[in-house]
């Protein structure tokens, strides 16, 4: 702290002016006292036409004059009313014109819902919201069938035991990876951040549960720490936040991808139920079998239909073929008959011709053939020396004869 003037007198020993005093006091205050939070009851609240707010914070024994500049006032949700307990963040100064101690408030939070914790929580929430970390669109879907489930919690706590029990019962295919962290106490936020970052470095995690069992507001406080909330939001895998019992909502609940009322509920959210899945598979097997059977039946029907049609088609072809064959046979037979008839009349003609030439025919007309004993035909008169025995062949028989000589 450096002062322009030694307290008590000006450098030249003259008395200090009022302005010098207030300026000195202001400098002392502004340099020596860092920005701070103050709690008190609002009174005399005035909103100036300029947009600045003027009010007094008081408690049973003291008052503090406050101002809030337009720009800061515009960011406050709602307007403080007289009688309201608030937290105000700001810095002390001196308002020289009046010689008043003055508090320049930058931020005001109502304390009505839960006191200082609520105020801090609201502040952290507002910061997270400003950075878009509460945007519902950020929320990632949880994996359907996780293989590795990370759990950031105390290795000694009930949460870990509950989660082991639930996952062991529902989804023992999984691997549970404990990332131990202190979940309460002053160093819990930093340790939770460390554990969350460590979990983020492990490849193959499918989902991460962060939380602890129920406790007092103070016990659960680490999960309302803005740093922890940001570490949850930064997780590379979806996070389920499970802090305390049914009614507690923590900051990590707001930034996590899913929220569960208890660690048990978180485990149920994280993994499916094997028994249920097996039932579903069984049902699917039934459907598969039924559709396959129905399809086979359809095919069988079509085959039967095709076979019947083929039968009919064949029968028609055979019918047609048979008719043609019959026709051909008839034609062939007719042709054969004609040929035979022609041959037959030819034979008859030849036969008639032969018949005319037949020696028997000649003999019948009264001629005879003479042959000697050797059967030689005797043609000339000279062939009949006297006394020659010969045979005469007539149409109806043979006569033995003897030559008396020729003339």
């Amino acid at each position, binding site marked *: 702290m450096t002062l322009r003037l030694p307290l008590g007198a000006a450098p030249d020993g003259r008395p200090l002016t009022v302005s010098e005093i207030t300026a000195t006091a202001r400098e002392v205050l502004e340099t020596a006292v860092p920005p701070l939070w103050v709690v008190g009851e609002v009174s005399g609240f005035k909103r100036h036409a300029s947009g600045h707010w003027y009010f007094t914070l008081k408690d049973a024994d003291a008052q503090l004059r406050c101002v809030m500049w337009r720009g800061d006032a515009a960011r406050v949700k709602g307007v403080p009313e007289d009688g309201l307990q608030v937290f105000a963040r700001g810095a002390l100064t001196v308002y020289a014109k009046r010689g008043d101690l003055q508090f320049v408030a930058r931020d005001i939070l109502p304390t009505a819902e839960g006191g200082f914790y609520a105020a801090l929580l609201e502040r952290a929430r507002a910061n997270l919201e400003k950075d878009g970390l509460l945007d519902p669109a950020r929320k990632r879907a949880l*994996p*359907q*069938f*996780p*293989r590795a489930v*990370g759990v950031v919690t105390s*290795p000694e706590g009930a949460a870990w035991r509950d989660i*082991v029990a639930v*996952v*062991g019962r529902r*989804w*023992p*295919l*999984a*691997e*549970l*990876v*404990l*990332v*131990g962290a202190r979940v309460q106490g002053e160093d819990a936020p930093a340790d939770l951040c460390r554990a969350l970052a*460590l*979990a983020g*470095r*492990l490849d193959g995690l*499918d989902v991460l549960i962060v939380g602890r069992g129920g406790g007092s507001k103070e016990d659960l406080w680490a999960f309302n720490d803005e740093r922890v909330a940001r570490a949850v939001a930064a997780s590379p895998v979806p996070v389920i936040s499970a802090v305390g019992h049914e009614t507690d909502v923590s900051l990590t609940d707001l930034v996590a991808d899913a929220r569960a009322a208890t660690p048990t509920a978180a485990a149920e959210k994280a993994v499916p139920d*094997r028994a249920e*899945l*097996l039932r579903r*598979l069984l049902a*699917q*097997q039934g*459907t*598969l079998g039924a*559709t*396959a059977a129905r*399809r086979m039946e*359809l*095919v069988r029907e079509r085959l039967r239909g095709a076979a019947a049609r083929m039968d009919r088609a064949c029968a028609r072809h055979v019918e047609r073929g048979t008719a043609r064959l019959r026709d051909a046979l008839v034609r062939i037979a007719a042709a054969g008959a004609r040929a035979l008839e022609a041959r037959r009349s030819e034979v008859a003609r030849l036969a008639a011709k032969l018949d005319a030439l037949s020696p028997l025919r000649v003999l019948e007309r009264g001629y005879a053939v003479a042959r000697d004993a050797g059967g030689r035909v005797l043609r000339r008169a000279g062939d009949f020396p006297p006394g020659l025995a010969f045979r005469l062949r007539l149409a109806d028989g043979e006569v033995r004869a003897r030559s008396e000589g020729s003339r």
Partner: protein
Amino acid sequence: MSASSLQEDLARLDAIVRALEADDLDLDRALALFEEGVERLRAARERLSAADLRLRQLREAADGSVRLDDVEG
């Protein structure tokens, strides 16, 4: 065993059942799908019946590397 292929099996099964339920499918394809469906069912059931819950603890080693140790339930 891997969970992602279980997911694949289940998704594929759904698709197969849907395809079989639609009628515009030739027989060879239907039979192939049916066989695949049966195989996927078997694989999925096998995967589901496998294994006891494995518990491990993630720690950071002194050299800054991450280490997984088995722990008792």
